[in-house]
């Protein structure tokens, strides 16, 4: 297990050549990838969300594509479409794959796409396949959708429906860097531009092996019970939460905890994993009630309250 920790430490070190700070966000993106899940990155513009995902794809030698969501983006712009092609004097339809046919898909500003286009991503995220017309195309594995959205400029946006938000394993908050980190960022990028040569740390096969290894990480019964209790409490705690998380969140919390354990070089899940990952797992899966919002509680405050109660 120590070897795996070394791999991830090296990976983070390489990412650190490009990204300054944002260690938590980077770790959580890696967790989502190890769990074969999708992640929603939320943060203000200019916080290197896109750069982070692109760098990660580079380090893992994965095919990367980016979709810039706009209100006029059509589903076929994502999935691909049939085009007429002339082959030896005959015209025939040929499927032209869209940007979804990649290993890492960055759906930038997903909340700017229409619900119809957003839902086109649903099948790809959940089933790892795309249906165009009557044909279904399997996507190349591993496949992740890493979507971004910013919490401001909500005018003219289409907030993700709960059903779609639930399909993201984690909602990762990308916060502003600290003063020291920002100084480093300025030094790095305001000076003469030079290309950072990144070393490929993992390939597809390594990643698939790691994904299967994550599920083998054992978990103690009491920790498992606590994970379920945390998710269950979101449904029973009517004082602050109007709608709680689904059992999919329980599965997600356990898997994400296992992935974190593997990244830390541990061969068992710790209670600390639950405490840290409950936030990105539940953030987009709970809806606060009026009373909680009146008190000015955030979703993270509600999650903290639940974690304290289930200790």
């Amino acid at each position, binding site marked *: 297990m120590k070897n795996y920790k070394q791999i991830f430490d090296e990976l983070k070190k390489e990412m650190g050549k490009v990204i300054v700070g944002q260690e938590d966000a980077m770790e959580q993106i890696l967790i989502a990838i190890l769990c074969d899940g999708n992640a929603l990155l939320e943060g203000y513009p200019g916080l290197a969300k896109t750069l982070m995902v692109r760098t990660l794809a580079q380090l893992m030698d994965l095919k990367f594509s980016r979709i810039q969501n706009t209100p006029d983006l059509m589903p076929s712009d994502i999935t691909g479409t049939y085009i007429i092609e002339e082959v030896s004097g005959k015209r025939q339809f040929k499927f032209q794959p869209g940007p979804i046919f990649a290993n890492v898909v960055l759906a930038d500003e997903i909340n700017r796409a229409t619900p119809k286009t957003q839902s086109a991503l649903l099948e790809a995220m959940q089933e790892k396949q795309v249906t165009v017309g009557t044909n279904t195309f399997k996507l190349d594995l591993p496949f992740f959708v890493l979507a971004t959205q910013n919490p401001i400029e909500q005018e003219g946006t289409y907030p993700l429906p709960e059903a779609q938000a639930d399909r993201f394993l984690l909602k990762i908050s990308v916060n502003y860097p600290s003063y020291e980190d920002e100084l480093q960022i300025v030094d790095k990028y305001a000076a003469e531009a030079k290309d950072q040569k990144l070393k490929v740390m993992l390939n597809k096969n390594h990643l698939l092996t790691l994904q299967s*290894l994550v599920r083998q990480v*054992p978990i103690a*019964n*009491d920790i498992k019970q606590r994970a379920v209790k945390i998710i269950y409490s979101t449904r029973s705690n009517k004082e602050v939460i109007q709608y709680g998380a689904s059992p999919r969140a329980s599965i997600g919390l356990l898997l994400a905890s296992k992935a974190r354990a593997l990244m830390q070089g541990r*061969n*068992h899940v*710790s209670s600390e994993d639950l405490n840290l990952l409950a936030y990105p797992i539940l953030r987009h899966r709970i809806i606060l009630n009026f009373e909680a919002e009146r008190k000015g509680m955030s979703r993270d405050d509600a999650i903290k309250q639940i974690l304290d109660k289930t200790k």
Partner: protein
Amino acid sequence: MQTREAAKMKPFQNVVREINKTLNEMILFENIVNTTLVFLVFYLILTVLDITALFALIPALAYLGFYSYMSFRSYKPSIVESKYAPLREKLSTAADNAGMENPVVQELQYEVTSEMRNVGLSMFINPRTLSYKIFAVMALSFLIIFTSTLNIKFLEFARQKVPDIFEGPKGVGNFAAVKLNTSDDIYGKEDVAKLGDNELNIRIKPVDFKVNVREEGDTNPQKFESTFPKDLAVKETVAYEENIPQEQQELVKNYFKKLAEG
């Protein structure tokens, strides 16, 4: 990877079983010491209150039953983890997944088994607490002996006296048989029955004893009276004689003679 070494180890289920067995024994020992303490405390209290002291068994057995049940039900790996921090969350995870077979679990089991070598029995026994308890048991035992010997009772409950049958029944039905019978034929003379302040000098001879002729010395010659007492007299026996006439005797004689001749 350590899987080859792990394969040489005994199955992890056996390790878990051993942990459970050892801890159960220790818990039982501790519970017995505690139960003894509880028993002695209650015994002492009941003794000084002049209540049947054996009732102390009830709280003692209740304590033993309750705490043994709770202790045996408790999850033993957690107890070990609480005493040895490097095993925290590891042992319980390995124990809960003892039946699983994959490289990660095997590595964890190997790691836990290696760490278990550092866990000593002394971690589960607090010698200071145990010595205090044993000292308390000794102190309580001595206290009980002293209170019993000196007959110390802080609160003596009124005991019901045995009814004096010589005073006769008080307002209870017809108990004529219980009344004092002063007749001489059963109790003898009353003044003889009453001992008063007189001292009794009774010597009880053992049942089995041997007479040593040498120690006993010469026997005293017994004096026998040569004459019978006056009130004894010899009387002649009176035989019964039938008064049958001679001719009738002859007649009977002849009759039997004829019968004999046939």
